[in-house]
């Protein structure tokens, strides 16, 4: 490789936690800086937001007018664009305002609205510009981001980890908390990648990695409805961290209509 891959890490409305998947990578981070040309990564002290890049990771959702303009410029300057984390893939918690009266929420929180640039919705990157792949999770982890970088460095398509959490649960011999304890585990509708953090410590998955492929949110909800869970609580399980992920959003809407 004579020319190094130019990599950028951009931030939008988010908690900055996903960027830690890079910053906490230890030796791998050093290696990344050797193998690639990191052209923009403000949290690591490299600031050049308009630098053209071969690969850009995008953290955060689009919540302001400024962000809507900025993501368009980045798209134009980027060959392969990868939203990372729940904010960038499905709006995350700030997108809860999409289900509510956003104007009232802002008025309740801020005394002087004239100083606040905001859109009425917080939306995933893919709702604003075309994206090349997405890395899900709240937050994403080092294994995920580095697997993507190494695949792209080698010129191979990164693996889409779209299977359900349950598979990794079973490979790790974790006792199912839904069957053995009746917990409201979202593993059967949630995308793998976290390494089964929650069932691994005996609690239910709450879906922070977003929807897996081919989910059945109606059946998942019916199971708990039959056990007495109110429809509104079922709706909230889906319309939580990944509330704007299509499969969760639609399942949540159907449960909310029933409540």
């Amino acid at each position: 490789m004579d020319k190094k891959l130019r990599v950028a890490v951009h931030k939008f409305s988010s908690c900055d936690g996903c960027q830690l998947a890079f910053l906490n990578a230890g030796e791998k981070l050093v290696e990344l800086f050797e193998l690639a040309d990191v052209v923009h990564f403000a949290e690591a002290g490299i600031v050049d937001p308009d630098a053209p890049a071969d690969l850009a990771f995008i953290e955060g959702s689009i919540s302001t007018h400024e962000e809507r303009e900025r993501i368009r410029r980045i798209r134009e300057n980027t060959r392969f664009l990868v939203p990372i984390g729940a904010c960038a893939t499905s709006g995350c918690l700030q997108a809860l305002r999409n289900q509510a009266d956003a104007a009232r929420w802002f008025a309740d929180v801020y005394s002087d609205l004239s100083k606040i640039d905001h859109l009425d919705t917080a939306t995933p990157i893919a709702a604003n510009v075309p994206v090349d792949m997405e890395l899900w999770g709240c937050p994403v982890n080092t294994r995920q981001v580095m697997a993507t970088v190494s695949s792209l460095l080698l010129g191979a398509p990164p693996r889409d980890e779209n299977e359900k959490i349950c598979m990794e649960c079973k490979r790790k011999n974790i006792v199912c908390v839904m069957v053995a304890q009746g917990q409201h585990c979202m593993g059967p509708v949630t995308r793998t990648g976290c390494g089964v953090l929650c069932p691994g410590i005996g609690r239910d998955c709450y879906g922070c990695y977003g929807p897996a492929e081919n989910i059945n949110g109606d059946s998942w909800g019916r199971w708990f409805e039959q056990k007495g869970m109110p429809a509104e609580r079922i709706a909230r399980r889906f319309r939580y961290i990944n509330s704007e992920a299509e499969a969760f959003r639609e399942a949540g809407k159907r449960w909310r209509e029933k409540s």
Partner: protein
Amino acid sequence: MAERRNFLPRSEFPRLLSELISAGYRCIGPRVRDGAIVYEPITGVEDLPQGIHDLQAPGQYGLEQTAEPRFFAWANGPQALRPLTFAGRDKLWTAERKADGSVEFAGESPQAEPVAVIGARACDLAALYIYDRHFMQGEHPDPWYTARRQKLFLIAVHCTHPSLNCFCASTGDGPRASYGYDLALSELDEGFLIEARSEKGERILAGLPVKKASAEQIETADREIEDAGRRQVKGVPSRNLKDVLFARLDHPRWNEVAQRCLSCTNCTLVCPTCFCHSENDVPSLDGSRSEHYREWDSCFTQRHSYIHGITIRPDTRTRYRQWLTHKVGSWHDQFGRSGCVGCGRCITWCPVGIDITEELAAICR
């Protein structure tokens, strides 16, 4: 056969473990973890689930402590022999790029230590027979399976407490163990009837302070096993269902079950006869080194039927149908029998309680 059975008093049961340990085996047995009976390393009889009963229903599993003396008064938990032979994930080989540009492949050489499994059930031993044929007795034996399998010392326990989801009597696989064990136990309140089936088993048995079992003990033990078969409430037709299933690929029931099925893979990953896996590579960041893994996969995933840009089974209807028509249908062509040994795990551990016996009854009616 009956006169070959010996009696080991309950008070002497710890001797079985110490004999196994001094013969060099690591002991794996049932113990309670996270609300279920799992097969994990045990160091003494105090680790065994004494007095524990299990409560199983479709999509539900629970335990109950009683004051009873028995260690094995329950039916199978989430897993047993499967992960001990066919592991959830194995590294197969590593590739490394050398300084001169050549690539070197280094295969892992599978190592296994001698392991004694206490409490293998009939259904799991019947499943092991299928695994042995699939992984070990074909033209290309699997080195990982073979290494582990050959180091297993198996102590069966004939079942006396089937769960509500057990149906091994209808598949002909239980509740009495009949394949692959070195020793078999029948548990009575006062102790165990014990019989050896292999030379290894005879050697362990020779070190135990056994007495001759009384006719009454033998009769009680046999009756309890027979009752365990009779008490089972579920069942499947014992005939070959292949033709009937393949004639009903458009049955409306496939759509109905797809309304409930989560396509979550749990049924296949707890099934002691399912063997699907996928392989993938984990390269280092600079691409100089790559590790190649095999891991459990399932016909309920998208990639299972992904071929050259097309997913042949894109929806749950076709995935569930693939599972059932293979498991109890085309399995007959492959193995000369159904792939279901009646363990009931897919019913218990399905998060929404889908019941293979009900689905088969509806489709094959």
